[in-house]
């Protein structure tokens, strides 16, 4: 069995881990690095529960070999906020009841975070289109969309230096 050592920056921390090339990023994050925010829902690239941010792109971590992320900066839900200091999206999901069982939420928020960075002022349609790769079996999406729109308003009113980085064409 050939193994290889990869370096990642996960949520601002440099990590080095030795893995088999066939290990999927989601398994490396959850089983080797104990980062269990990103979930495994379908394992077939459809549900988006495993979404993480890699170098500014939302990626389904169940459909990427960890070796493909060598040298990348990865942000998971753990890197966005924590129980003592919720990210504005987390606050708004709480406020607007954007989650029920919560299984889809880490992926949903990680994706919504990237969406708002690219398009800080999305319409309702932009939000629905932008989170189309994330499935939720509980909420019916209404409250998720409300929460993302509310977060966008709050970010625009307040100052989040991230929020102005990129605008979708």
């Amino acid at each position: 069995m050939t193994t290889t050592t990869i370096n990642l920056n996960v949520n601002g921390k440099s990590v080095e881990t030795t893995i088999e090339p066939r290990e999927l990023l989601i398994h490396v994050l959850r089983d080797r690095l104990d980062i269990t925010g990103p979930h495994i829902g379908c394992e077939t690239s459809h549900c988006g529960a495993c979404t993480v941010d890699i170098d500014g792109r939302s990626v389904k971590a169940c459909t990427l070999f960890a070796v493909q992320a060598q040298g990348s900066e990865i942000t998971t839900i753990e890197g966005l906020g924590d129980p003592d200091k919720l990210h504005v999206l987390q606050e708004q999901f709480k406020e607007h009841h954007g989650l029920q069982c919560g299984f889809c939420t880490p992926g949903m928020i990680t994706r919504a975070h990237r969406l708002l960075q690219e398009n800080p002022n999305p319409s309702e349609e932009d939000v629905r289109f932008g989170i189309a790769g994330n499935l939720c079996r509980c909420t019916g999406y209404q409250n998720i969309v409300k929460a993302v729109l509310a977060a966008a308003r709050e970010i625009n009113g307040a100052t989040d230096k991230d929020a102005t980085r990129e605008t979708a064409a």
Partner: protein
Amino acid sequence: MIPGTFEYHQPDSVQAAVALLDELGDDARVLAGGHSLIPMMKLRLAMPEHLIDLRRIDDLKFIRIESGVVHVGAMTTQHELINHAELAQQVPIIRETSLQIGDPQIRYQGTIGGNVANGDPGNDMPGLMQCLDATFTLLGPDGERKVAAREFYEAAYFTARDDLEILTSISFAVSPGGYAYEKQKRKIGDYATAAAAVLLRKAGDGVACSFASIAMTNLADTPIHCEAASQLLQDQGVNDASIEAAVASCIASIEPVDDNRGPVDFKKHAAAQITRRAIKSAWSRT
């Protein structure tokens, strides 16, 4: 859903990648975004012993528009195609099509090279490339050669690309005029039940049709360039009667099969609807 074992290679030039492919032969596969290959490997439908990842090869990542010709590097992602302002202006059908592929996460990762090289009839780019009359550039141990998109697809997963070749870039002319990519799918993130790419141009008199090109996706085991229908619109102009004749000609050239997206009759019906819609929409944009 764990893929089989393989050895991973990360060359940093196209030459090094071709050399590796030459050395490892049939046991090796190229890895681009991985969003077609990894799902196959998880199902163990593909079990390559070596993967040659192209991600470090910067020479394969570019979009250039020079003297009316667009050149796109194989490792350009669908997301990058969508966000390229000049491309969106010069060849808007690329953006329109890319936005209908998969979902946002898929588009950040999937590359145009992987999409056209894959050979899956469900992929959207091959039909579009036939519509645009694109040319694929392939590099192998014996050097470089070019193959027209309209000659590239032989059967499902069989293409004119030799196992030892890497598809390096794609080029096509800028396309002024009307355009439409219409896709019928069961839900977001699904492959097409039927899709049609249409390009139309109006003649100087503002009435006649000076150029037409129609291609269809997932309605046979390769994409279908509907040459007769395209010629028909050029000869007869675009009106209700010629549209119906062109649609009938397109339907005669496809060979859909019964599967989980529906029976043959339904697919022909869906194909006729989207083709009619695409022609009308493209003509209204001329």
